[in-house]
């Protein structure tokens, strides 16, 4: 029978594939949908670990992930996008082809750095740790090379997902308080960004962060 470790491995690789796919996507709506997929996969990972290790708080983490990352945050982002006219990343700093090559290279670096790491007490899914590091790198790549504020938020949430995955694997779930705290932080960050974006869009008719550089002293 296929063990829980293999299932988690498979889900982790699927997460990486989704993250790589989002590097090639220029449409903002599709980017947010890919975030939903990422969060669903993370919820599955938490559920699998919960089933195999029997820890109850993993189920709580899974449900929280589902509620906040897969429903609440994307809902906010979709509402923001509905108010915005241009829903595509028109001139990213790195073209799609180059971004994919760089992203694959970053995944390679992540694997070489964390592939042989064996943490004691961790869940025995070997692929998950390199994948989480790769997610952090790819999130940073997204944040650094995209101009639209929503794209940068997508990058930030991808980084967050990577850290969350590390937390799930390494310590079999972070303590529930810390988890709730992180979720709250994320919610606040998303909320503030959403409100600011809407306001800026109303004022300047663009979300392009390049234009925002003119707001200097």
């Amino acid at each position, binding site marked *: 029978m296929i063990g829980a470790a293999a299932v988690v491995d498979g889900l982790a690789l699927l997460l990486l594939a989704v993250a790589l796919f989002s590097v090639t996507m220029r449409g903002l709506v599709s980017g947010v949908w890919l975030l939903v997929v990422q969060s669903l996969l993370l919820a599955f990972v938490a559920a699998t670990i919960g089933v195999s290790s029997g820890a109850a708080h993993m189920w709580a983490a899974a449900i929280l992930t589902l509620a906040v990352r897969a429903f609440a945050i994307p809902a906010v982002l979709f509402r923001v996008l509905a108010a915005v006219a241009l829903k595509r990343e028109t001139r990213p700093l790195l073209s799609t*082809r*180059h971004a994919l090559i760089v992203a694959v290279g970053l995944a*390679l670096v992540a*694997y*070489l750095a964390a*592939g*042989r790491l064996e943490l004691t007490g961790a869940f025995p899914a070997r692929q998950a740790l390199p994948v989480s590091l790769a997610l952090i790198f790819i999130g940073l790549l997204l944040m650094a090379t995209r101009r639209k504020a929503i794209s940068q938020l997508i990058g930030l949430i991808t980084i967050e997902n990577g850290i969350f995955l590390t937390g799930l694997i390494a310590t079999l779930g972070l303590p529930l308080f810390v988890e709730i705290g992180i979720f709250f932080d994320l919610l606040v960050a998303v909320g503030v960004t959403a409100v600011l974006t809407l306001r800026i869009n109303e004022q300047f008719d663009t979300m392009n962060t390049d234009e925002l550089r003119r707001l200097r002293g």
Partner: protein
Amino acid sequence: MDGPLPGLVLTWQLDGLSLLFGLVVLSISAVTTVYAIGHARHHHGFPGSGLLYLLFIGAMLAVVVAGDGFTFLLAWETMSLASFGLVLTDHRRAGVREAAWSYLVMTHTATAFIVAAFLLLARTSGSLAFADWSARAPAVDPVAASIIFVLGLVGFGTKAGMIPLHVWLPRAHPVAPSHVSALMSGVMIKLGIYGLVRLSFDWLAPGPAWWGALILGLGVTSAVLGVLYALMEHDLKRLLAYHSVENIGIILIGLGASIVARSLGAQAAMTLALVAALFHVVNHATFKALLFMGAGVIDSAVGTRDLERYGGLLRRMPITGLCFLVGSAAISALPPLNGFASEWLTLQSLLALGRASDDPLTALLPLLAGGALALTGALALACFVKAFGISFLALPRSPQATEAREAGRLELAAMATLAFACVALGFGAVPVVSFIGQLVPLAAVPTAGSALGLTTAGAGRLFVPGVALVLLALAVLAAIVPRLLGPVRSHIAETWACGITLQPIHEYTATAFAKPIRLMFRDIVRPVRDVGIVHRAGTRFVASVHYRSHIAPVFERYVYLAVKDRLVAAAHVVRRAQNGSLQLYLAYVFAAMLTALLLAR
């Protein structure tokens, strides 16, 4: 053994490696000489060029059987100077002198590096004899060994045509007469490989893994960039010259893998990679000489090297076409020819090396190099579909191509011999690989029965004659079986061109053929294109459109010109120290004398 002058002592040695390279030199030279005699009526060499040619071959032989550093360098220099003279055969044509000059400068710079490496090796062992270097190899200290390795890599790599030291190749090979190009591409650049093999396996003890990784990386770069630049060319000889760069890259991939395996102690992978590299040396010599001979024949028949002027030559020159087809299939690594066998061996050795390493990086790099090798094989196929298809098939694109005449009997004999050799080396891959293993003990791979391949469980096997036999049998079946459905006739008619009569201008051109690849790889190749539209006077109607497309010379602009500019700037600075004043020069002499006295105290 005393040489031609008193006090000049030349020593020789003949071991398996020398014998192997010597055989390659002799056999290819013999065939090329037959070709040169037949081709002599097409070019007017200067008086003495025949003698220079023989001197060139003799010098190459001397290089592989040299027994000490001095003999080697003497032969090496003679070889370089002789080839320089031969490249200048057509010195009245535009561009030949610049090409020969750049070749001379680069090869001399390379020789300087080789001299430095030799001197460092001599310092450890106390003499210039190769036997002493082999014996004292483990005694060379690691830092010096790495320096010697890098110096030798630069020196021998330039002669081999490794990127980024390759810029002389596409300049010198096209302007040389075709028998000289055949020898230079087929044999001379292999002597750079000979030097590298001697350096890494004979004169230096197994070193750190980065040596092999460096060669592997440079090999991959040379292979991919070489074939991409070849695809962009429509001068047939420049195209072939860039393919030499590519194939040297493939040989270096095998060589680099074997050096890495040696550092890691992976015996099986090392022998497999080394024999793959040596086998590819033999194969490349064969089909490259064949292709250059074919290019020379076509050049004389049509009067230009430009692919866009060829076309339909298969009708006019059937035997040349057949030989060129065999050469094209061999260089594109198609079964059952020799190119496929050596590329198969190289891929297997990369897989073996990957599986033998524990460290993830050393395991991953050979496997990714295998992917790059597959890419170059497929791109080489694209390039030779273009080269053969545009030259020999469809309609002639120029009046000269319509009137091309078949080559003479000697030239055809030479090409047919090499074409037959390509087929024979492919079918007889197992005996040839065993023979190489007998000559070079480090490359002795136990062949699995009568098939190529390692004896480990699950390892792939290749039995070329068997595959070829099945292929032939099935082709016969495919030709005969449909006839059971009844006879059919074939009618001859005009090609469908949407109702108009087909003209040569409607055919695909070489530049158009390479366009998808040019666009897909535009970040690496950097094509530059100018389109100019000329309107009829005073109106908006288009009178003519000028289209110019060329490849930005990346290496020359960013590497060589940059280095040259820096050197010239530094020279300007130093020049200030020579201001012509006699008193200052005397002061320099005085200061030098004082320093020497103080140091010698």
